[in-house]
């Protein structure tokens, strides 16, 4: 190889590294800006919306790891969310174990379950897989519904306590929740960022595009899927644990219903599937919209809020099928 090609290679490598660095800088700027939001937004309701947005961004990004990067469209992530919520709640309410620990336990449980279920479902392709995940989550929902130890249909009410960072209970103050949710999003984003440029990240995308070709190029397809499922389930469950602490009451329907599985996928899809910023962007648009249409139109009972909400999802999905993120990225061969 000639010297000139070597230098050109180096240059290109550098451009690539520069791009990665630029992504980090952008992320730092965005997250810093978001971190300043509570300074301006004092209204509890709006803070509540912000927290939900961050939470959905984080959970949707977790879904995106399996669904967007690895191409395994899960319609059952409510299961992992529920496990996180229940683990944190049961450990805290029944055993007085701080929810931080419960979140991690829920995450590990979910990751383990995701791997176990993966042995069953990852042989399935396309819709068969999607329906299998849906069905498994529904089974989970029914079981929890009928499991008295975790409160069954009655759910679990978190006790009132004094405000404390450890128990994640703040009576009126939303700001701590905001920063915890932001922290969660930052962590999930960073993990995605790091994996994206690792061998796993590339393997996942190869598995998504063409598993058979990937296999012939040394990609451990099955293990790739398991790994993606585990990471994805872990963070989804952590999000669930946070949600339980945040709402301080959970019941099966309110953390595990099928609707949630869809709502976790929705921001990533609308924002841009398999991208670093798609899920956060999707959540930033979708969640405030959901909350605000319901709050300001839902009270009438006319169904108008649903009409607007449904139409918006439809319009966004159709107008920018590759995701809203494509509005921000230059039209080049590369990805965002």
């Amino acid at each position, binding site marked *: 190889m000639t010297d000139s090609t070597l230098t050109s290679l180096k240059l290109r*490598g550098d451009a690539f590294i520069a791009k990665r660095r630029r992504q980090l800088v952008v992320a730092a700027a965005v997250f810093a800006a978001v971190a300043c939001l509570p300074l301006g937004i004092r209204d509890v309701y709006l803070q509540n919306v912000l927290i939900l947005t961050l939470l959905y961004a984080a959970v949707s990004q977790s879904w995106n790891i399996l669904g967007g990067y690895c191409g395994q469209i899960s319609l059952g992530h409510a299961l992992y969310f529920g496990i996180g919520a229940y683990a944190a709640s049961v450990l805290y309410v029944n055993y007085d174990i701080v929810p931080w620990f419960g979140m991690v336990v829920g995450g590990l449980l979910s990751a383990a379950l995701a791997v176990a279920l993966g042995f069953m479902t990852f042989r399935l392709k396309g819709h068969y897989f999607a329906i299998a995940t849906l069905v498994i989550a529904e089974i989970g929902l029914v079981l929890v519904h009928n499991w008295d130890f975790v409160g069954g249909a009655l759910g679990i009410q978190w006790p009132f306590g004094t405000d404390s960072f450890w128990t994640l209970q703040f009576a009126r103050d939303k700001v701590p929740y905001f920063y915890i949710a932001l922290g969660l999003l930052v962590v999930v984003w960073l993990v995605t960022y790091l994996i994206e440029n690792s061998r796993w990240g590339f393997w996942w995308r190869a598995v998504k595009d063409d598993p058979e070709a*990937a296999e*012939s190029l040394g990609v451990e397809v099955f293990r790739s899927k398991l790994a993606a499922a585990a990471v994805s389930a872990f963070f989804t469950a952590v999000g669930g644990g946070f949600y339980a602490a945040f709402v301080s009451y959970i019941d099966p329907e309110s953390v595990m219903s099928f609707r949630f599985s869809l709502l976790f996928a929705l921001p990533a899809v609308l924002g841009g599937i398999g991208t670093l910023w798609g899920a956060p962007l999707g959540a930033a648009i979708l969640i405030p919209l959901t909350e605000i249409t319901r709050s300001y139109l839902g009270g009438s009972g006319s169904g108008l809020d649903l009409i607007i909400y449904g139409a918006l999802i439809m319009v966004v999905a159709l107008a920018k099928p590759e995701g809203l993120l494509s509005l921000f990225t230059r039209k080049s061969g590369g990805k965002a």
Partner: protein
Amino acid sequence: MTSDILLETRGVTQRFGGLVANSDVSISIKRGEILGLIGPNGAGKSTLFAAISGARVPTSGSILFEGVDITQMPAAERCRLGIARTFQVPRSFDSMSVAENVMIGAFVRNSNATRARAAALEVLDYVGLDGRADATAGQLTPPEKRRLEVARAIATEPKLLLLDEVLTGLTPSEARLGMDLVRKVRARGITVVMVEHVMEIVMQLVDRAIVLNLGKLLAEGSPADIVRNEDVITAYLGDRHRAA
């Protein structure tokens, strides 16, 4: 070097329902050679590639690579051992860029992304696709996709490279460049098996040819012998070659 046989198939048979695509095929591939695998359409060449590369476990028979039985080994593991293949119908990762496609191959030997990228760019340069490194693979024309297939396979740094009709659809001058590339690959110490229907290429490029017909081994020998083989002419080459 243990032996000069790199890979051996023993009685490989592949059935699809009533159809026998490979029937008791036993061949040996010698280290360092360029072996031509030819035969009529549907003779079972691609099927044999699938068995060797691990895409499909044969109905019966066994496959030995460097003396180790790999018949049941998953494709990914074979790739790490040093077997790489291209697909006759190109199967690129269409959402990724050309360079990223090749990186997937390069990850077999480099766990670090930056190094994998450097390796991938080097291979692209080598096969002459460097100009398209940042294009999305989905945008490539069929001949470009075939070249990408080759690049990806080379990036896995194989010992054995299975090329399934990668030089079709080229003008003669382009085909010449392609043949140079295959020779360069072999010069790196990579054993090459290629399926090709264009006899002008096969004749000039391969050291040895194996002919399959109706799933069975029909003939084996130097290219010059093969084209004179009456059975091969009847089954495969046709009258024009008899005249020639």
